[in-house]
């Protein structure tokens, strides 16, 4: 039996569709209800929905053998897992954004608001820029508008939200997409099962 952690939301549904096409269907998952775990014993899979940022924790700790997480989450939390596939969906990028016309003259500590504290710290330390990190949990775009920060480090998909708030990307950090990850110990003891699933999913990547 393979335990698979899916990220709640639109991305998770897309990923489930890929798994279904790869031959790992579980009809119960499409029914709207309060159930958290869905099992198809004939195909040897058990799915569960978790908060996207928690997928890597479930997989690292072995509660899930396999999971699907955004590269942003993997870069932020650096879990000790195998990253077996780039699913080429859920594509976006981690970027630095600021109010339109903002210029960093480098003369004072840069105030950076973000959910991605580690990614932001690593990015700025790689160019030796002194920063003050402000950790926020949502509505990051608000920070530069209210003067809480000079810039933000966040996920940018189309840039519409930024534009609507008079913000613009000033620097790209890294491209992001959904990745299939596996627990290291599970991979040792369920090698054939995981390889088969990975091959099936690989054939569904566009």
């Amino acid at each position, binding site marked *: 039996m393979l335990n698979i952690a899916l990220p709640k939301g639109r991305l998770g549904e897309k990923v489930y569709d890929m798994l279904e096409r790869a031959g790992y269907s579980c009809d119960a998952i499409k029914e709207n209800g309060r159930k958290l775990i869905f099992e198809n014993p004939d195909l040897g899979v058990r799915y569960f929905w978790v908060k996207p940022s928690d997928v890597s924790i479930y997989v*690292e*700790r*072995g509660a899930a053998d396999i999971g699907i997480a955004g590269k942003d989450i993997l870069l932020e939390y650096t879990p*000790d*897992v*195998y*990253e*077996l*596939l*780039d699913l080429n969906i859920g594509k976006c990028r981690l970027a630095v954004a600021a109010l339109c016309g903002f210029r960093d003259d480098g003369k004072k500590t840069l105030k950076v608001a973000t959910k991605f504290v580690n990614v932001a710290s690593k990015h700025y330390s790689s160019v030796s820029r002194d920063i003050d990190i402000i950790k926020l949990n949502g509505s990051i775009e608000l920070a530069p508008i209210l003067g809480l920060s000079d810039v933000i480090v966040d996920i940018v998909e189309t840039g519409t939200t930024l534009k609507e708030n008079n913000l613009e990307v000033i620097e790209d950090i890294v491209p992001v997409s959904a990745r299939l990850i596996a*627990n*290291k*110990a*599970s991979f*040792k*003891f369920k*090698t054939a099962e995981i390889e088969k699933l990975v091959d099936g999913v690989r054939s569904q990547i566009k």
Partner: protein
Amino acid sequence: MIDTKVLKTEERAAIKLRSLYKSYGYQPFKMSKFEEYDLYVRNKDFLVSDRVITFNDTSGKLLALKPDVTLSIIKNSKGKALEKYKAYYSENVYRVSGATGQFKEIMQTGLECIGEVSALDVLEVVTLAAESLAAVSEDFVLDISHMGIVTAILAECGSNREFSRRVTEHIAEKNAHEIPALCEAYGVSFDVAAKLSALAGMYGDRATVLSRLSEICDSPEAREALSELTELHKLLSSTAVSDKIRFDFSVVNNMKYYNGIVFKGFVAGIYEGILAGGEYDNLLKSMKRTGRGIGFALYLDSLSELDGKGDEYDADVLLLYGEKSSLEAVHSKKLALISEGKTVYSTSTVPSGLKFRETLEI
């Protein structure tokens, strides 16, 4: 006579391992809880985590609660006038745990073989690593890799440290899909990029991995490392644990210290590796020692995962007695129950929060 049923998995393993290492002639190594901080600063990349608990001793010297044992054994081996120093240990170490970011006391047992290490010693250490895992659980896997091959392939494209660090991270993640783009960004040739991607997917049955390796090992250094692996494969084939030992290049240790065979062990039911080791001649060199060194450590604290759900009852029998009970009668009843193999908790009032299989009143 010791009742082994009351031992926890980690305690049982610790006892088994001690006699295993002793039977191969390894000498016990006992160290103090503290070591000079200087030792760890000079070799901080060798440590799993570079954060250590420090304090000043009575003369003001900076000491540390030991985060590692290997460095102390190497330091200690200086005084030994032996061509080979074989030592085993069972010690608590103090380091930051990855999951919580907090300091943790970790019970660790392991061994080191330092000096004129031969192919036979390498075989001995690898076999002992496998036997150590077998002492914990029959269902185990020992993955072996060779840092010499990784280093040799990286040398083909010059040695940009940042590139080496990032590409070995990808190899450790079995992340072959990001290697081509990374190589392109650093101007690494297509040929080397293909080899590095192949390495990221190199795991499994030893003979299969060896034949695939021979296709990517071109340089003399890589071929030398390959022949060492081939030799080890042949020697391992006749051992009882042969089918549980695989080659897997996602096992990557710091190249600054590890140069030869490196390995990692897993047992079913524990979500992370419980054994890690390898050959660290470069570390010896940096500590001004000659010769070769190889060893491993097994983390005993993670074995508690195997203990299962725990006991359903705190004791089999709750023996309740009142003011009027005869003390002799209570005592002899208690002894009688214990001699039947039951666990007995005797008291005059029902204890709260404890659970018993049956209650007897006298």
